[in-house]
Structure formats: C-alpha cells, structure tokens
C-alpha cells in the first residue's frame, strides 16, 4: 500500500485533471462564470527578474520577483518549517559562481521569516567538507545574520527512503529536506559535462547521500527520479552569475558570466528550461528537461505558464 503511494497520487492527479478538464469544457459550453473559475489545474507561473540598472541590490531583485509571483505568503504559511536547499557543493568563494549567491539565500530566508515561518533551515549535503563550504561560500554568515539554522550534514541525518523512481528505488535521503512543510530549491545555474547544465533538478543530488557518484551512470533519469521525489514548493534559479565553462566546480573568474537574472517558478522543468536558454542551450536538447516533461514533472512549454518579467 505504502509503496504505491506516489503512483496513486499521480493517477489521482491525472484523474483530477480529466474531471476538471471535463468540467471546464462544460463550463465553456454552459458559459457560466462560476464553473470556468474552477476549471483546469492551477496554471503554473514563471517569473524572470533581471537587474538592469547599475548597482542594483540582489536582495531587492529577489523581493521583487517574489512579489510579482504573489508574495512569499503564497508558498510559506505562518508557523511553517521551511527547508531551503541552496547549492553549496564546493568550498569556492561566491564570485566564482560555483555556489548559490549568498545575497539570494539571505533574501529568501528573510522573506520566509517575514511570511511567518517558524523555522528556516539551510540544508545541503555538500561535496567538499561542509564546514569549509559553509564558511567560504558565505552561507555561514547568512545563517548568522538571519538566524536560520545551518544543518551540518552527518550520517545520522541520512535515512533510507523509497524514491519510487524509474531508476532509483531505495536511497539514503538527507532527511532535513523531507522533514519540512515547505521546500525551496535555490540552485545556481552552471554548465556540467554530462547533464549539459546543472540547475534546479540536478540540485537534488545534493539532497541525497550514499553512493551518489554512481548516479552519473544514468544521470538524466536519476535526476528526474530525485526531482519527482523532492518536489519543491518553488524553485528560484540564481543566475546572477552563471558558470559558463569548467563546470560544475569552475575555479576561475574567467569561467563566470554575469546575467543578473533570477528565475522563479513552481514548475521545476520550466525553471530549468528557461535557465538553459541563458546558456544558449535549446531546452529540447537538455536531457533533464526533456525527461522531466515526459515524466510529467512540469512543462518545457512556456505558453502553458503565466510568464512575467520584472526589471530592477
């Protein structure tokens, strides 16, 4: 019973879509307004914020992006425990664009707190030594400044869980990410050899432990498996600085391009697809996006979404 939970949900979702689709059709035919208001699944959204003015504040851009999506209150309720998953994989200074911009992280945590979150946790199972990563990437300072809890990855926090994936069955999962009312994915956009790019969905490799270096043997499918398992409330792609060469660890300022862009979406596939375009990559050529859309995680078709653009 327990093992079929996800499939049941997916099926039930499909069922709901079908029923509501039918209802919508009825609504169109009947032309009655109350029916059409109930029609269809809630449309996803994608907000792209670009810092165009010189010397703009990254934190203000984050706020503006969330405001135009309806405010953080849409995702975080009063008393929620929020888990934020930045990409802090490498002990690299923020300027090298290997890790999530600390200002983005700080602004998101502040927004969560303003929305009434009981507790905000920063959780990432880093690749380099976690203490060094937290120190060098600036996440430690953000935690100190905002009062968010910085969770140190340790063995006792890894739980074997059922992923219900196509390729992954039981895998050790970093439990702070699952034990939260709201999960915010905060990836940085970088190039990566095998998966072409590492953006939002790939960020979930930092949400598991175990033999995660074996995941690369079928990288697209395992990433999609993890993405459907974690299902963040919302994804905010940090493309303020992106890594265009030598990914995913970079190491040189020459590997970094400044895009001053943030992509906020509740559709993980669309967020990755839009980020791919920043690199000049056709989302259709981006395996994770293709597979993610195929498995029903989201849509690579922006017309299915409410797309907004904001500038600062």
């Amino acid at each position: 019973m327990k093992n079929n939970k996800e499939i049941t949900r997916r099926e039930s979702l499909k069922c709901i879509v079908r029923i509501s689709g039918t209802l919508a059709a009825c609504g169109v035919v009947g032309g009655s307004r109350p029916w059409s208001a109930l029609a269809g699944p809630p449309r996803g959204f994608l907000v792209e914020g670009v810092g165009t003015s010189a010397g703009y504040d990254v934190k203000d851009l984050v706020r503006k992006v969330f405001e135009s999506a309806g405010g953080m209150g849409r995702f975080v309720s009063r008393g929620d425990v929020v888990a934020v998953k930045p990409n802090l994989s490498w002990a690299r200074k923020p300027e090298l664009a290997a890790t999530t911009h600390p200002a983005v992280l700080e602004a998101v945590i502040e927004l969560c707190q303003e929305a009434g979150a009981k507790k905000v946790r920063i959780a990432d199972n880093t690749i380099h030594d976690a203490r060094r990563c937290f120190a060098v990437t600036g996440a430690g300072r953000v935690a100190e400044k905002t009062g968010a809890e910085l969770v140190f990855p340790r063995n006792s926090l890894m739980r074997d869980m059922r992923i219900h994936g196509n390729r992954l069955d039981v895998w050790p999962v970093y439990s702070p990410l699952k034990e939260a009312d709201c999960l915010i994915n905060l990836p940085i956009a970088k190039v990566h050899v095998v998966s072409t790019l590492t953006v939002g969905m790939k960020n979930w490799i930092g949400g598991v432990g175990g033999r995660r270096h074996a995941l690369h043997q079928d990288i697209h499918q395992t990433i999609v498996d993890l993405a459907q398992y974690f299902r963040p409330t919302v994804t905010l792609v940090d493309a303020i600085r992106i890594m265009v060469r030598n990914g995913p660890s970079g190491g040189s300022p020459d590997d970094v391009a400044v895009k001053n862009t943030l992509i906020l979406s509740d559709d993980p596939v669309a967020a990755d697809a839009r980020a791919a375009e920043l690199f000049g990559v056709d989302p259709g050529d981006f395996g994770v996006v293709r597979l993610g859309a195929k498995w029903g995680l989201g849509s690579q078709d922006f017309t299915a979404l409410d797309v907004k653009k904001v500038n600062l």
Partner: protein
Amino acid sequence: MKARHLVRARRISQAAFLLLFLFLLVESRLPQDVYQNYSLLFSGEADLRLDYPVTLFFEMDPLISLTSWFSAGALIEGAAWAALILLVTLFLGRFFCGFVCPFGTLHHVAGGIRPSLTGKKRVQASRTNPLQRVKYFVLIVLVVAAVFGLNIAGWMDPISFAFRSIGLAVLPGIGEILKSGFDALARSDIKILNLLSYGGEILVAPVFGYGHTAYKTAWFIGFLFLAILLLNRIKPRFWCRTLCPLGALLGLAGRFRTLKLEKDASRCTHCGRCTAACQGAASPEPGLDWQPSECLLCLNCWETCPEDALHFRFSWQKPRTHPLPDMGRRAVLGGILAGVAIPFLGRLDPRITGTPDSRLIRPPGSLEEAKFLEVCQRCGLCMKVCPTNAVQPCLGEAGMAGFWTPHLNMIQGYCEYTCTLCGSVCPTGAIREITSREKTEGPIRIGSAYLDRGRCLPWSGNGPCIVCQEHCPTSPKAITLHRETVVGADGKETAVHLPYVDLRRCVGCGICENKCPVRGRPAVRVISAGETRSLENRILL
C-alpha cells in the same frame, strides 16, 4: 607550611598545563566558527588560520628544538620558549617535568589514583634504580641520530607522544564509541531519540570530530599509550623515570642546579615516607645520595617529611657527590652506536635512496624527503588538523625512517584545493606554511593523477561516468572528457565520455581518487610522481 603551599601550586600548575594542552589539542582543527566574518577569504587574499597557538607545547620542548637544530642546522620557530625552559632548568632542575609536562601529569595521575603500590612496596618501587639510565640511552640515540640526519625524536618525545596518542587514538576512539551510540539512536523510529542523537552529535562533534575520523596504525598508537600509562602501576611515573628522553635532557641540564635538596640526617627517622612520595625516584632519604638529575621537583618529600628533615634551598655550592647522572659507559657507547646506525640503516631502504614509493604523497608544502626526515616530529598535528582526514601516519610508505610521518591517503580523504592548514600548524616546518595561491596557481604540486583504464567505467565500456572530471578543482580542468565510441563486454559499441588527465594542470589533490565510484582501488589514482618538492621525482620535462 611553605612546602604545602608550593605543592598545591604545583598541582594547580600541572592541572592548568594539562588542560591547556588538551584545549590546544582539541583546537587543532578546522575553525568551528563558520559564522565568523570570512570576507577576507572571499577575496582570496587571506588563508584560513587557527585562532590559537596550537604549537605552544612543541615550542616549549627543548628536545624538539635541539634535535631539529642538530639535524637541519636551523632553529625552529618559537625555539626561544625552549631556550627559556632550558635556562630555568639550569637553576631549578626538572621543573618542566614536575610543573608543566602534560604527559608527566597524566602519569602522575595514573600512578596516584588508588595506587597499586602502598607502604613498603611503594618505598621499594621508588628507590633509585639502575634502569633509570635507560632514558639517557634513549636520549643519546635520538640526538646522535639527529646529528646524522634522521630526526626520530618524535617517536619518544613526550609532547609528540602525548599529542599523537590523544589526538589520533584516544579522541577518535572515544568519538567512535559515542557516535555509534548516536547512530543507533538516529536509526530509531522514535522522534525524540532522533533529536537526542542529533543534539548529542552537535555537542560531541567539535571535540571528537565530524564524521568518522580514522588513522592508520591508530590501534598501535593507542595500545602503546595505554601500556605506558599502565606501567605506572608497577612503578609510579615509570615513563618519566625510565624512558623519557626529554626528562634525560632536562636532567642533564639541571644537574648543577642551584635549587637543591638539603637533608638533615640528625632528624631523620628513616620512616621512608619521602621515598614513597618521591615521583622521580631521586633518593630524597637522608643517608642516600640525592640525585639532582632524577628529581622532578614535585616537592613531595619536603611536604611529607614529618620530622622536617628535608628542605629545598638555593645554594651555589658545588655538589659534594654525583656531579653526573650515572649513565653507565655501556649505555653511552650503545646509544652512540645505535644513534649512528639508525639513520644509515634507514637509508638502506631503496625507497629513500632510489625511487620513492608511489603512495608516499607528502602534504602540500612538505620539504624534500631528506630534509623532511630531518625535522618531522611525527607528532600528528597535521593529521589532527586535516579537515578531510587525508593526512595519515605512514606505516611503511616512507620506510623505517619515515614511520608515523604524514602522508596523504586519497581513499580516506583528499587535499582540499585551497586548504593550507597542515603547513600552518607544523611545529618544526617540515611542512612549510604556504598560501593557497601557491597551491592553486603553482608552483606546488602534491603528485599526479593517472587513469587505470581497465577499471574506469567508461574506458572499460561499462557505462558513462564523469565523476573525476566533475570534481577536478583546477581551472581549466586537469581531467577532460572526449566523446568516443567504446566496445563493452557485450560486444556492443556505445558512445561515452572518456576521461583524460592533463599532467600539466593536475595538482595532485586526489579528489578524483576519493570520489571515484570504483572503491578500494579507484580507477583514477594519485601517485607521488610529479611532486614539486623533489627534483628527482618529477615526470614532465
């Protein structure tokens, strides 16, 4: 009256120095305060350094300064502390053993808590014994070996011994016990126990280390430590009286000390209490020759004597008896012989004179091998401080002469690209203090990576994998991928990314070996060839 106060002062001093030693030992780690202002680090100008002078006790140790001065011809940083200790010893005798030495304090406690020996047995055990000259033999061996270019003082030096034992065996051992308990709690289905486990780990980890730290030969280091502590049950402060080379050195320096024990034979009733209380077995009893070189200045005899027959007084008079500690001619000659023999026997290893062992990867900034063996104390500070547990004590990689010297084991850990902590804490400069820029932009290279194509997943046609390339920290990457077609075991052709190593870019950090999914004997490995510290062991022209 006065003696009692001085004994109390000694106890306070011993406790304070032992606590300071343990505190500095625990602080020999990556700074825990990740919340501190790292803005300087962001600019890449400043390297991460420890907040406390963790090498203080090593600098105070005259044996370390002396042997590295003899072997390398240069004084170590902070040798002034050692000089000060020696200077005071000239007047006070072995006050370092009685008041300061943390290892001595451990022995003092081990021999004093519920003493196994009481009454006459304890008096008998604390009479001056010819075995006590063994420590002079040990000292001669270490000093002569240092003169001939092999500094093995750290094997027996009490500060190095204590640091290595507690840092590499005792703390990780206790940590392992605690963590297995927490892991068991974490596996429980009861939420409160999970939280308890997490909270417990947070409390314990800063002292006992994050994750599972393990050191090669730690079982042996721990066994030696326990055995030497247990010897105190046979003779109190067995180590200090019989084996300690630093005690021997300080004994020699303090043999003409001006602070002398004056005995009033007319008052003595030969009750034996002074001998039973004597920590150094220095014959405090009137009627016997007091041994200034054996006296640890514990002041117990002065305090204990019920007849007030014993006093410590400053006196400039020449001692009437025993100007020299009784070393024994054979011990001296044997010590010199062994001291000469050990460095040359050490060099008989083909790995020292000929081709170095491929797995002898010294930490970044290490001196060239001969120089390294002249100064390395094998104290384990670099191993304790390494955040990834990569720095390990050598077993056979560096031959007999390099036993317990540090080397990098890339299966256990890897060398963090920008980390330079090991060099910053090395008490003798065997690992130079370097900047992260020297590591990342050159010239320092630790070794070189190479691919074992038979094991490598893509090369052997067993499937795609890019983990080594992904983790390579250099820019541009030293491991690059090229898409090619390979034939798998089933005879089918598949297109995979094949990794190639560019030796010009590889710094030898070993993260590729550490993260390779082929465990145990990874498909990409780092060898010492290509290390910049050696002129002989380079690969490229």
